[in-house]
């Protein structure tokens, strides 16, 4: 089991983190979320081009880098921490589904960044469903893909990432019961990696604030009422990171462990992420309730992510089944 990043993975993290800090800091996130398209195409061009992230997990024969899910988890943690707007997660979920189900046609377009794709997760709802070129849907053991079709944008809780009602269907582009089952587990791992980033950034924000905000002539981080909560939040971060690393390792190296690790990841990290984002917002005091402060963006993303793959209890129920309880 490998729970510590390799040197290469650390370099990948630094590269993505550095890029996002420069190209998509929170003021730019706000500008993007209020723009028509909901994200900055220029950031995506560089993300997919210079950093090659659209092709990260696409096999080399389809024009990607063929990296592992451990690398993907590193990247999603950073895009989560930066609240990167737009279809990055949506296209990533699509890439996971196509890779696992054995697609040949669509992956090259995803790898070179020319295709924005999404996956129908819940009846007819999809992340970035209005912006996607291709909508994938799961139909039994087949994957269907539809270009066009009806799209109805939704106004949702999370202003940094859009959703839409879409039409599932289209041509069959791949078929594999096993691949699709694996993809569903990998969705859970991918979302957990993003949640880990949201959790970490929420904690970092309130830790930083605790060192500069003064009340009653003391930094608020010196009060145990704040300090002890932050310590508890740090404990959640440590555990969440361990769980995500383990799940990503299992995805790459231990297929038998993947289902359990993925269900654990959603059962633990989804909840921890919302709790930390919530407490971070609350401990900011009144300013955390303002639109101008960023705390609410993390809080809303955390709640949207927690329910993205279904009510949280389904992950716990799956865990119970896998444990044969």
């Amino acid at each position, binding site marked *: 089991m490998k729970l510590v990043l390799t040197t290469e993975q650390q370099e990948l993290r630094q590269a993505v983190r550095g890029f996002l800090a420069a190209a998509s800091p929170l003021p730019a996130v706000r500008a993007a979320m209020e723009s028509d398209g909901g994200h900055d195409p220029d950031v995506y061009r560089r993300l997919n081009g210079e950093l090659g992230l659209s092709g990260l997990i696409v096999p080399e024969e389809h024009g990607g880098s063929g990296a592992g899910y451990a690398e993907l988890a590193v990247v999603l943690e950073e895009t989560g921490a930066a609240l990167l707007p737009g279809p990055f997660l949506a296209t990533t979920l699509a890439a996971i589904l196509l890779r696992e189900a054995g697609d040949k046609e669509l992956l090259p377009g995803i790898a070179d960044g020319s295709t924005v794709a999404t996956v129908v*997760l*819940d009846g007819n*709802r999809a992340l970035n469903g209005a912006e996607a070129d291709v909508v994938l849907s799961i139909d039994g053991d087949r994957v269907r893909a539809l270009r066009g079709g009806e799209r*109805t*944008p*939704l*106004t*949702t*809780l*999370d202003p940094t990432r859009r*959703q839409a*009602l879409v039409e599932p269907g289209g041509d069959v582009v791949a078929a594999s019961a096993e691949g699709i089952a694996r993809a569903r587990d990998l969705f859970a791992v991918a979302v957990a990696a993003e949640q880990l980033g949201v959790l970490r950034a929420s904690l970092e924000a309130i830790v930083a604030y605790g060192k*500069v*905000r*003064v*009340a*009653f*002539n*003391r*930094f608020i981080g010196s*009060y145990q*009422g*704040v300090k002890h909560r932050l310590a508890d939040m740090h404990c959640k971060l440590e555990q969440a990171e361990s769980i995500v690393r383990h799940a990503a390792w299992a995805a790459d190296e231990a297929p038998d462990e993947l289902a359990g690790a993925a269900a654990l990841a959603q059962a633990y990290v989804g909840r921890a992420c*919302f709790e930390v984002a*919530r407490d971070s*917002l*609350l*401990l900011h*005091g*009144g*300013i*955390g*309730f*303002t*639109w*101008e*402060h960023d*705390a*609410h963006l993390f*809080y*809303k993303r955390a*709640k*949207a992510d*927690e*329910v*993205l*793959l*279904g*009510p*949280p*209890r*389904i992950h*716990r*129920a799956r865990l119970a089944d896998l444990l044969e309880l």
Partner: protein
Amino acid sequence: MDLEDYRQRARAWLEANAPGDRAEGTPDENGVAAAKAFMAKLYDAGYSGITWPQRWGGQGLTQAEERAFAAEAARFTLPTYVFSIGLGMCGPTLVDLGTDEQRGRFIRPLLRGEEIWCQLFSEPGAGSDVAALQTRATATDGGWVVDGQKVWTSVAQHADRGLLLARTDVEVPKHKGLTMFVVDMHAPGVTVRPLRDMTGRAHFNEIFFDGVHIPAENVVGRVGDGWSCAVTTLLHERLSISSGVGMGGQKDNPVAFEALRTSVDTGDPVVRDQLVELYVRSRALALFNQRLAQETKAGIFPGARGSAAKLLLAELTMFQADLATSLAGPEAVAYPGEGGAGGGLANAISLAPAMALGGGTNEIMRNIVGERVLNLPPEPRTDKNVPFKDLKTSGGLPS
């Protein structure tokens, strides 16, 4: 006059005069005009300022009449929101601490709804620690000049007058250099800007003071005595808030127990158990509030124990919005009317933090319960005897 007669007449008046349409939150310009018109009728009928002194325009009656009227009024939704700060906090402070000249000038127009009031204490750098405020009032010919910024001010966009707390001396410890003023919100240099909150709406305002002149006769209490004046105001605030704490607002709340029991799948035993948890917490707090109310009626003043009820309400509010969204799953995040089935859940989870932040954070409530109910020793204080100008400020933050 017999109390039952009083109640009957109040009911008759309300049935004849209460507007039928529902009024919620801050109204627009037209709504304000209508609210002022209603308030004038209410005053002229003798139902505004029921317990306030007759000399200043009140009715000089007792709590009994006040409660009788309130009980009848609870069946209507009266458009009195824009007057609530004036009636609940500013007016009572002036009755307690104002000069006769101030009482004579301000109270009758306040009770009759001719002048809307707001309260100007909180600042970006002075939230929980109100006495750390930085807005300066500098003595000048015949009065004072005010510069600074206030925040979290309700109804300021419609206000004619404000009760302002400002610093008049930075050489003395922070609690000793404050003074309270009545400020004309239409005076040159006053700018009111709506403050958008995390729900995307503007329930509050920011107020900027840029060289605003206040005449000397508008000082409330004594110069340098502003902190004890503010404590009086905050006591009135707490009373008017705590009387509203309870199960109120749960009736149409999409995340309260009664709504969830019909909206979630109680065929799942785990979901059912979570609903039981919500019921238990809701009932526990409701019964505690009812006990406090019974004690109050029996003459036992709840005091700081009301802060325990406020803390519990803040936690329950967050718990139920969190639970409801978690139970609903993906549908929870869509706003209604957008093809989503989320109903009010997205709004509820956006609004949930408000209860934990307004009227004192959970941490402040725990301090109050710990120190004033349980009499635990206070934190060591480093800001009591230091000149204000030498105190720490929040580095790198607007203040």
